[in-house]
């Protein structure tokens, strides 16, 4: 039910069914009434015909067969019949076409003189009947009966079969036109919801990072939504860069005085212990600033993110580190595929920068970076051929350990790596590399 298309379709279907049903019933009813009244008219004509053929004979009123208006009344079992009864209900005359009994109860109570009594009998067989009572004045009264009723009957089988045929045709066409309307409705829906589908497609592309804004000309109802979405996306990007800039400014304005303080301290020629104590405080402050700011800066998992290729970032960082470690030639192995991780470029650079700097510092000559893309996670593996990690490796990763509880340089880099990975729902594990050095595996959920 949670689809506009299904909602509209269901509503359309219901409406169509009700409309077609009611139309069909109304048409059927109207045509039936009209056919019935046509039948009645016809029978009325016949009654007048029989009336015209009546005359007073010896012993009462008689019907002169030659004067009957309808030849079918003369043919046995023709489907058109006439019967004359007196006011006692006794049959006085019947047309030669009528060979059966008068259906029971039909002549039981005669209508008032001059009244018509029309009936549609269904048993024992379909018949239309019209009963008309006349009063015979004058000499006829001598026979004892002054009121007579003329009953005309018409076989209704053809009427019924015609009604059936009509109904079939009516409903067939109604169903056909309903089907056509349905098809048209589907087409209209497709056409009408087209822009919405396009927006959905583009939003998906934005989610996967293939697109930065929703483009195109949209109907006025959608335009405000599209503009709103675009605005939101742009606002988010602006907000992020403002946020990062603010963090940068904060880092700059916190660290520069710390740097000055440390240089003062170095020049102050204090005795060993005082200097060390003061320096520890500076290191603590520096650690807090670095750790918290890097934690705050990690963008983390977010809907609208572009996948970033790992290899170019590794290549950039290794070129930079090779320059810095010129006295110690290091062979960096850069991943040779174009594997990507869903992370912010800056975060990936921070993460790999910290890992590669550690590896470069501790390796003897080789650092290798691998990317393993699995169905559930993409892992970045950094190996070196140095002495490997000390015993308590997991302590180096402990997130949430207050940065001021660490001394500077003691695994702060790895803690920041863990923090960045955690922001993306990833994990970091420290093991041993094939050459016996350190191996760091950072896994990002795919």
């Amino acid at each position, binding site marked *: 039910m949670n689809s506009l298309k299904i909602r509209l379709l269901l509503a359309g279907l219901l409406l169509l069914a009700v409309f077609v049903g009611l139309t069909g019933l109304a048409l059927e009813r109207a045509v039936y009434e009209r056919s019935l009244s046509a039948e009645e008219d016809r029978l009325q004509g016949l009654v007048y015909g029989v009336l015209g053929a009546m005359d007073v004979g010896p012993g009462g009123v008689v019907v002169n067969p030659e004067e009957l208006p309808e030849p079918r009344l003369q043919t046995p079992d023709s489907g058109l019949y006439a019967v004359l009864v007196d006011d006692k209900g006794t049959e006085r005359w019947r047309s030669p076409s009528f060979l059966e009994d008068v259906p029971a109860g039909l002549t039981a109570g005669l209508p008032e003189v001059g009244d018509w009594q029309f009936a549609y009998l269904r048993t024992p067989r379909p018949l239309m009947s019209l009963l008309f009572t006349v009063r015979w004045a004058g000499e006829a009264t001598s026979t004892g009966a002054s009121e007579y009723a003329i009953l005309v009957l018409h076989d209704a089988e053809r009427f019924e079969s015609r009604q059936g045929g009509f109904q079939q045709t009516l409903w067939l066409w109604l169903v056909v036109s309903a089907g056509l309307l349905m098809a048209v409705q589907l087409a209209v829906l497709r056409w009408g919801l087209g822009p919405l589908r396009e927006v959905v497609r583009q939003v998906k592309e934005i989610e996967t990072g293939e697109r930065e804004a929703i483009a195109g000309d949209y109907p006025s109802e959608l335009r405000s939504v599209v503009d709103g979405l675009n605005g939101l996306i742009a606002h988010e990007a602006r907000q992020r860069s403002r946020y990062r800039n603010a963090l*940068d400014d904060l*880092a*700059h304005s*916190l*660290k*520069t*005085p*710390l*740097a*000055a*303080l*440390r*240089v*003062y301290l*170095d*020049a102050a020629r204090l005795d060993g212990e005082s200097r060390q104590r003061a*320096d520890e405080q*500076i290191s603590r402050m*520096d650690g807090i600033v*670095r750790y918290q700011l890097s934690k705050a800066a990690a963008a983390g998992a977010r809907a609208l993110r572009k996948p970033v290729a790992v290899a170019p970032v590794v290549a*950039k*960082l290794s*070129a*930079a580190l090779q*320059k*810095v470690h*010129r*006295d110690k030639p290091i062979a960096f192995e850069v991943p040779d595929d174009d594997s990507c991780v869903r992370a912010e470029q*800056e975060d990936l*650079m*921070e993460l*790999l*920068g*910290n890992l590669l700097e550690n590896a470069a510092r501790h390796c003897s000559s080789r650092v290798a970076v691998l990317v393993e893309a699995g169905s559930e996670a993409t892992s970045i593996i950094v190996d070196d051929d140095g002495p490997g990690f000390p015993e308590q490796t997991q302590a180096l990763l402990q997130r949430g350990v207050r940065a001021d509880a660490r001394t500077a340089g003691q695994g702060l880099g790895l803690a920041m790596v863990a923090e960045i990975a955690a922001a993306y729902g990833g994990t970091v594990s420290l093991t041993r590399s094939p050459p016996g050095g350190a191996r760091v595996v950072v896994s990002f959920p795919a």
Partner: protein
Amino acid sequence: MRILIVEDETALREELQRSFEGLGYVVDTAADGTEGTYLARENPLDIAVIDLGLPGISGIDLIREARAHGREYPILILTARGRWQDKVEGLEAGADDYLVKPFHSEELLARVRALVRRAGGWSQSVLNCGPITLATAAQRVELHDTPVELTGYEYRVLEYLMVHAGDVVSKAQLTEHLYPDDADRDSNVIEVFIRRLRTKLDPDSTLRPIETLRGRGYRLTLPRQA
């Protein structure tokens, strides 16, 4: 050695200037990118320490400008933000090393010394030419494993010659790299230092460590030992 320090934070700049001057460096300073760029382009430097977060011209642009003008001395960048994006950008622009604030003076000095001798083709902190050994960190000189007492200026002249061992170093070059701009530059003083160095390093005139090339300058002739 002549160093350029470009740092907008006055306290830090002055403190760094003081410590480098204390070690016998000639120190040029600039508080913004514009002045820094001018000095980086025009002065005969041995090394530059450049803060990335500068007002005016950014540290990165300053480095690019200096490199574009053919300046090849080593450059160390200071960064407060400590972001890898910045470090990589700085190194790509032509810097040789980075240091994240707050740093220890010793760390900065060690990096600066390392960069200077690396620029002269040395890979260790102890320079060795024949029987002369010069430990840059301790500023100590030994001849045949015996300490040699040198004055500050004598040491600086010898250090400069040894860093550039095998190259011809002109008197003007020595003056520019060892004296501040406003100092009284008398080239005869250089001759005096050279003479004293020769006496102290080669008392019996057998080693002949410093060669005089008439009209061109001096050259340390002893072979470098790795």
